[in-house]
């Protein structure tokens, strides 16, 4: 009886839906590509694309759970990738990395101040900061790529453990585990859910939502900076394009993975599967040789699907809360 209940609970969970969706993606593309999709090197390519978008997703995912949003992660990451490459030309990599992360955190703190002190909507504030960061990226780089040739850094970006597992993937996976545990097992994790679920209730419970917001924006800036530095290491070059292209897929994965725009729900297990689905989906379209325009259409439909799932899931939650009340 207990096991039947547990099974029923599992089937009702969002994770089950995601796993089914992932299985569908894998099966459909494997069949259509006659097995190429499942080649080890192709699977590595799929996971490789999670490195940068994964780190960005962790930052913005925490904020979304807390009921906020950061649209500047791509721009901050790109700025930090350029700054990191510039620093590496004149200083040792640990110092360059620390300074880069500090810059990312400072921009995150600026976002937090605009949202919590000035009172801007997170959407507007972070979009404005993104524009500033984008401009600064061009100012610092003069629009030109900055080569990264520091051996240890390029090893982090392009090296492989035992000649098989890319180092950068391991970094992202470890980060996922840490953040998943933080969310599910720590007091701060519960605080994030509470702030996102009901800010007033959190306040009455003695939680300081402003402090939480500051921590999360700074955390988001930090992760964006690391993502930018890591991308520079992977490309062996700081570029003005940087991590911007990964921001969209990261946010789509967050929603697909169960993090609601409304806040208060979701977890990084689902987001991880969401990232796998999105990257697998995009990779599969490429493997099939589908034109770029159709790929964009399909990705948009996938985002619409994620938003619809999010909408109905929020609606169901509200109904349940209403019934309970």
């Amino acid at each position, binding site marked *: 009886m207990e096991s039947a209940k547990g099974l029923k609970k599992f089937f009702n969970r969002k994770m089950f839906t995601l796993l089914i969706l992932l299985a569908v993606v894998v099966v459909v593309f494997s069949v259509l590509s006659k097995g*190429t999709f499942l080649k080890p090197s192709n699977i590595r390519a799929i996971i490789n694309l999670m490195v940068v978008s994964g780190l960005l997703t962790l930052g913005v995912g925490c904020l979304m759970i807390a009921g906020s949003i950061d649209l500047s992660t791509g721009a901050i990451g790109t700025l930090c990738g350029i700054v990191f490459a510039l620093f590496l030309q004149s200083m040792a990599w640990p110092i360059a990395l620390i300074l880069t992360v500090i810059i990312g955190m400072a921009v995150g703190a600026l976002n937090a101040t605009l949202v919590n002190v000035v009172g801007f909507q997170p959407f507007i504030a972070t979009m404005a900061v993104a524009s500033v960061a984008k401009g600064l990226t061009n100012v610092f780089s003069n629009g030109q790529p900055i080569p990264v040739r520091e051996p240890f850094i390029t090893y982090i970006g392009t090296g492989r453990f035992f000649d098989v597992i890319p180092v950068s993937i391991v970094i992202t996976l470890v980060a996922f585990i840490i953040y998943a545990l933080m969310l599910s097992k720590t007091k701060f994790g519960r605080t994030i859910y509470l702030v996102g679920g009901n800010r007033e209730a959190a306040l009455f419970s003695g939680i300081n939502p402003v402090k939480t917001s500051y921590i999360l924006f700074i955390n988001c800036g930090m992760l964006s900076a690391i993502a930018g530095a890591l991308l520079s290491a992977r490309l062996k070059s700081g570029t003005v*394009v940087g991590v911007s292209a990964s921001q969209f897929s990261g946010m789509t994965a967050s929603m697909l993975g169960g993090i609601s725009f409304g806040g208060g729900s979701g977890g990084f297990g689902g987001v991880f599967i969401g990232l796998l689905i999105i990257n697998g989906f995009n990779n599969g379209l*490429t493997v099939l*040789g589908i*034109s770029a325009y159709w790929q964009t259409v399909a990705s948009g439909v996938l985002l619409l699907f994620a938003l619809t799932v999010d909408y109905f899931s929020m609606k169901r939650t509200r109904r349940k809360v209403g019934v309970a009340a």
Partner: protein
Amino acid sequence: MKKCISLLLAITLCLSLFACGTKTGTTTPTATPTPDAGAPAAPPAGGGEPDAPPPPPVEGAGSVGYIDDPVDHSARKTYKIAYLSPAFMFLQQSWFAAMQEFQDRLNFTVTSFTGEAGNDAYLQNIEIIADQGFDGIIMDCELAVAVRASEVAEETGLPYIAFVQSMLDDNMKTVCPQVVLDQYETGAKTIRWLIANYKSYWGDIDTSKLGLIDLGVSVSPDLWARAIGPRDIFQETFPDGHYFFDDAISAGGITPDAAYTLTTATISANPNVEYWFITGSTEFMGPGAARAIDDLGKIDNALICVVGAGANVVDWDSMTPDTKTSLVACLAISDLLYAAPAVSGMVALIDGRATKDTLWRDKTPANYEFGNDYGVWMVENDIITRDTYKTYFDEINARYLESGGH
């Protein structure tokens, strides 16, 4: 209701997926052969051994890697070539369509791949292409990732050619054979044409009242080089003239709107300048600048000549003979002139009849600024005008698509 919407979206997703699955490789209106995505992987090429031995050159061969290479291409298997670009916009589509024009003649299929504006995805695509059993890659690669892209391509063992954008190492030396423009010279040609022809429009003018708006793009080394030529030559020819560099990046990017905004602002801010030359690093700047000139009522006082033809030709096509325009000329590079050497060079590399060290060595300009380690095919280009453009494209088409090459 929710079930209906969810179902509808799921069906749309599946349909779009399967619609795409009907294939492939292109969105261009040109008919696309269907690359055999699921076919067994072809053996490594270029550095490796193709399925069948390379076809024996027929008598008279002596131009390996040229479109008129008289080798019998039908005597071997059909090669699978990938065209990898950072994005797949108007220009990339046109180049891709031009490559397809040579598929039957050189016995290959070409499929497009794009990094979707992400450098990381661009690099991953190289591995995907190798997995898919392609025989070679024509790489339109941003300089920022050229070093890494060449490393990844080397790891796959596939032959590759740099296309349109230079692939250079840290010392700004070529890393593989290239099909590129002499960027500085293209910009220089546009201003030279304006200088040579302005008197036929304006007669003798006071050149202290002449200005040049040099529409450029600072974030692309190649496009930046195109803007330097006009500056140097204008300032040398008209020391008393007025030079303005307008960066498209400051107005939102490489679009006609950016050109419109910048041209309008510069002309409005400088009423002391009576006559205007306008040069641009990309074709999209021509129509935008022309629209600005039109709106400012300066058609009789401005002459535009930009690098690139496509968008300008569209503008000219839409005009009647009576329509006045300041968009008088542009530097044209037929897509076929880009595509022909790229695909024929790639076929020679896959054949094994040329290597990256030997391909087009006779074509590389002496003292090339980016080194002489690999062959460089400088793509031909010509200034065309509203009166000559049709003849130009007819001649190129006849040369490549009818008479069988140069």
